[in-house]
């Protein structure tokens, strides 16, 4: 019954979802003009009546449309492809070869949760010669068992083990390959979840938002007002204390929001292995379920942001392949692990990536180039700022832009220290730092191309830049390696059957 040639309809809840989506659409399009008119002309009874009629009509129309589109939406698995048909007025039919299915994701929003249905998202990749990625298919409402069945029969496969019909004792039975039992690899504990939130670094994103909001308060709570109030009350004797307290409060708020964000996204994070695929389940309010075939993983990255580094904790990310014009995707493989746990974790999840070779650092003479590269933009800006300040007669303030140059230089030094690389028979490992320190592991057979580049300055001092493209948007680069090492990496990471000497 899994290779259902009979076209199937979605769960009827799809109608409701469609209706809600239409209403939301109508609302967002029409509410502003209405509010505008209401504010300008005032509200009278006839306009409210007209509005009500309009709302009823559009809801009924949307409901009818939702029903028609539910009736028109059909999907089936026929032979080696998934077919999806929809469209009330026009007909839209899509056929996706099962081989091209990249992942089958299950997502459960709030409404789907109420009715105990799920959304199935089928992500595809235009492989072969077409180069154009096919668009994704989304089945907005499917019952749990049907979704599981779909995920099993659509699960991206390598060889393509297709169910075969055989006559057996007069009865036509269909051999369905046993669904592999999912094996739990790791579950995120409560303590780790909170730690992940506390050290997520999202605070940097939340903070500006809060700052923007506090601008609004500034208009109401002017400093003079606050100060007077505070002094009248006899506490907070000076403005410094107010400022410090306020800043502290804002920081704390941002931090709590960041923690809440991480809890929402990563609560119950569970990674399991199911045959040749990895399955990730996560989320507090919206449960997300993603299945990714292991052989689509191009690279694994461990990211230590500056808050996690003192704890020796990392986030593990995987980059999966893009095809043609499709960008690859970066997925969190596990939100928080101790650095020492990473290798054994990868051994269980994606053994191809479970290596931790000793990393080489850069030659000493590259340090100068790193420092200059980082300090130079700051230096140019500082020169401009200092001349402006001197011109304005504020030369004692020149210390500020000048210290920025020092900061730039220090950043360059940190980046230099952060770089590490290793090339062995089957892997390229590159560690680099922007603010977070990231280590990327890519097997040789996943490298799409390798490059060796030299600027005239590099040529003079015998350094070079080695880079390897792993996927669209993921380029592993080591700047200012020893030129001989870079050249060695260029050829060592090629196909083994390459002629050794040309």
């Amino acid at each position, binding site marked *: 019954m899994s290779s259902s040639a009979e076209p199937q309809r979605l769960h009827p809840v799809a109608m409701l979802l469609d209706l809600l989506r239409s209403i939301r659409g109508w609302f967002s399009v029409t509410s502003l003009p209405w509010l505008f008119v209401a504010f300008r002309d005032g509200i009278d009874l006839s306009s409210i009546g007209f509005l009500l009629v309009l709302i009823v009509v559009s809801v009924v129309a949307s409901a009818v449309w939702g029903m028609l589109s539910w009736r028109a939406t059909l999907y089936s698995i026929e032979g080696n492809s998934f077919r999806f048909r929809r469209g009330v007025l026009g007909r839209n039919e899509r056929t996706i070869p099962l081989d091209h299915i990249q992942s089958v994701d299950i997502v459960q929003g709030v409404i789907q949760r109420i009715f105990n249905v799920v959304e199935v998202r089928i992500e595809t990749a235009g492989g072969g010669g077409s180069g154009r990625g096919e668009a994704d298919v989304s089945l907005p409402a499917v019952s749990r068992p049907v979704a599981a069945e779909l995920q099993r029969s659509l699960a991206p496969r390598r060889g393509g083990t297709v169910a075969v019909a055989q006559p057996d004792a007069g009865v036509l039975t269909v051999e369905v390959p046993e669904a592999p039992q999912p094996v739990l690899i790791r579950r995120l504990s409560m303590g780790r979840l909170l730690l992940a939130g506390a050290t997520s670094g999202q605070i940097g994103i939340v903070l500006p938002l809060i700052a923007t909001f506090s601008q609004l308060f500034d208009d109401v709570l002017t400093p003079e007002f606050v100060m007077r109030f505070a002094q009248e009350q006899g506490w907070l004797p000076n403005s410094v204390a107010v400022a410090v307290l306020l800043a502290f409060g804002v920081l704390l708020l941002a931090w709590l929001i960041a923690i809440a964000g991480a809890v929402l996204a990563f609560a119950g994070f569970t990674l399991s292995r199911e045959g040749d695929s990895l399955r990730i389940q996560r989320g507090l309010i919206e449960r997300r379920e993603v299945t990714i075939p292991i052989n689509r993983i191009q690279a694994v990255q461990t990211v230590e942001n500056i808050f996690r580094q003192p704890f020796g904790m990392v986030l593990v990310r995987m980059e999966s392949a893009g095809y043609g014009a499709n960008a690859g995707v970066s997925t969190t493989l596990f939100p928080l692990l101790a650095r020492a746990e990473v290798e054994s974790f990868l051994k269980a999840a994606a053994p191809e990536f479970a290596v931790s070779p000793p990393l080489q650092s850069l030659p000493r003479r590259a340090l100068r180039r790193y420092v200059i590269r980082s300090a130079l933009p700051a230096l140019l800006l500082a020169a401009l700022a200092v001349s402006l300040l001197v011109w304005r007669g504020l030369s004692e303030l020149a210390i500020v832009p000048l210290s920025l140059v020092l900061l730039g230089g220090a950043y360059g030094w940190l980046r230099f220290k952060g770089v590490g690389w290793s090339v062995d028979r089957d892997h390229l490992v590159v560690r680099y730092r922007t603010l977070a320190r990231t280590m990327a592991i890519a097997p040789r057979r996943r490298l799409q191309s390798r490059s*060796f580049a030299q*600027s005239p300055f590099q040529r003079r001092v015998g350094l070079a830049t080695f880079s390897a493209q792993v996927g669209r948007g993921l380029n592993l680069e080591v700047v200012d390696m020893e030129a001989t090492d870079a050249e060695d990496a*260029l*050829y060592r990471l*090629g196909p083994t059957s390459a002629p050794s000497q040309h």
Partner: protein
Amino acid sequence: MRTAPRERLDPRAKQLWRVEGAITSAFLLLPAAGATLFLSRVVEAPTYLAALPGLLWLLVAVLLVLVAPGVRWSRWRYEILETEVDLQRGVLFITRTLVPLARVQHVDTQQGPIERGMGLASVVFYTAAGPNRIPALAVQRADEVRDRIAELTRVRDEL
């Protein structure tokens, strides 16, 4: 470093790049002239300052049209090896790139309007990480290169 790849681009590549450089320069003329006008009329800066954007433009135009195409052509090399495509390019930064044929998803030949006028074409081959380009080959040569890459790609080795 192993010896540079053997094949060169078509010599007409230089003319092609000169034309392209001239077109780019023409577009850059507008902001440069605008800046000069702004400096002389609105700010009323001294003439030597006002002329600066114009001079800068002249320098860029000379580089783009007269200097870069020749250097670029003499650096550009390519070769289709048994298992990889070997590319070398660059004017100041010289880059050597190796693309395993087993990673190539598909190959195109492409022609822009100017290339078509000159009987040139580019070979573009795609990996999962994006396109790689061998520009400015004679049309017939481009077809040969494309077919050669396609043929070698078909013999995929998953090593």
